[in-house]
């Protein structure tokens, strides 16, 4: 199981390294989408500082949803997904490896870029810190949930929109606590409670989502 996990993980990372522009697109989307908000809302620093955590989190959520759509599509198209599921090792290994690879390729850049984006919104240093910690805990949950959505909508008509419709309601708690942590720090409170809840969500999702994803993959490739 561990060998399969590592093999799939390394393969996905290598594939991402060969197509660097593809891997960077979600990051570009994230930055562009975030910078649309000041244009729409207006340039008042007070307002922008107030809504910054929500904007950054919503854009990170959308960037993840867009990047996760092709998590399994390529492997299904060339038949390798079917071969992976035929392996004697459990499909959970494939599902987890795919999610970890997705997070390493798409989640990390968002976390690195978030403080830079936060500076554009004039967030204070402690608020930037809580944004990064929140994203560190929250983006893996988004990758896991997105993986489940991608497996369920594999090869389905208008799967992209469908994935977003399916996963967004499930991802709302992450958004609430992630943006809430920054808001708490901004208003001078401790964000420890938010981190704990994000951590709890991460643990629960990490335990449940790969199993559900494995089941979804079996359903979709039957």
């Amino acid at each position, binding site marked *: 199981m561990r060998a399969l996990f590592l093999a799939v993980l390394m393969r996905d990372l290598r594939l991402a390294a060969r197509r660097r522009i593809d891997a960077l697109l979600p990051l570009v989307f994230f930055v562009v989408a975030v910078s649309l908000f000041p244009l729409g809302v207006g340039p008042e620093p007070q307002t922008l500082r107030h809504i910054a955590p929500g904007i950054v989190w919503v854009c990170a959520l959308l960037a993840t949803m867009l990047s996760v759509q092709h998590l399994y599509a390529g492997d299904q198209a060339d038949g390798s997904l079917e071969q992976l599921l035929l392996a004697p090792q459990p499909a959970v290994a494939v599902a987890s490896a795919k999610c970890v690879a997705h997070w390493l390729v798409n989640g990390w850049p968002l976390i690195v870029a978030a403080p830079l984006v936060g500076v554009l919104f004039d967030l204070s240093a402690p608020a930037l810190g809580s944004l990064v910690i929140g994203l560190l805990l929250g983006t893996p949950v988004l990758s896991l949930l997105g993986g489940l959505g991608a497996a369920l*909508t594999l090869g389905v008509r208008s*799967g992209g929109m*469908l994935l977003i*419709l399916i996963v967004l*309601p499930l991802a709302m*708690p992450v958004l*609430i*606590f992630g943006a809430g942590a920054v808001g708490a720090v901004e208003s001078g409170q401790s964000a420890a409670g938010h981190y704990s809840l994000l951590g709890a969500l991460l643990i629960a999702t990490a335990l449940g989502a790969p199993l559900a994803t494995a089941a979804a993959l079996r359903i979709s490739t039957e």
Partner: protein
Amino acid sequence: MTAGMRLFNFAAPSRFYTLTGTLAPWLWVLTAALSVVGLYMGFFVAPVDATQGNAYRIIFIHVPAAWMSMVLYLAMAFWAAIGWAFRARMASMLARALAPTGAMFTFVALWTGALWGKPAWGAWWVWDARLTSELILLFLYLGYIALVEAIDDPRRADQAGALLSVVGAVNIPVIYFSVRWWNTLHQGATISMTAAPKMAATMLTAMLILTLAFWAYSFAVVFMRVRAIVIERERHTAWVADLVRAGKGAGA
């Protein structure tokens, strides 16, 4: 034991089709009768509210609809899971038939809530914890319906829908509590419906009668829909062919 065996008999689509065909007209009659009585009590017999005037009367539709929206989601997830776990075709079809009615009730609860909110709170919509989680429930229904409709193979659609509805059911408490937490974080409790004055007995009776009416309606309309699904999926079987030959199609 024998009663249990007899109940399992109805897991066969043909028997279920016959049974629901017999029950549906009676359920419609029951729905109509209960609705007339409940609406009459709610709109004419129940007293005018001291603080809210007549505007409160939307409660007689709003509250039962909100209850149904939640009950039907759990019923849908339950039957979908049964259908997936035991490969029970009838349970999967039932889950499919429940979804549109549940979504409809969720929408009705939100809509009547907005109509009630305007005179009571002065706004069509507030980001109250309950309103927000009801809205998310609507999204969960829409996600299920969209996923199930997008997959052409019925078996795969049923299983994928089952997985999604179970994941949604597990997540509902998490969503509800996080929304509540978020709400108390952002603003104080501006509206407290629990602090409302005690309800008059006639009001409660009217509400319960309408709840029963909504239950009867749900059964009736879900049975009608599931009959259509049965006919469509079992169209290659002999009993459907007999049915068609006898001139009693899905519309009978």
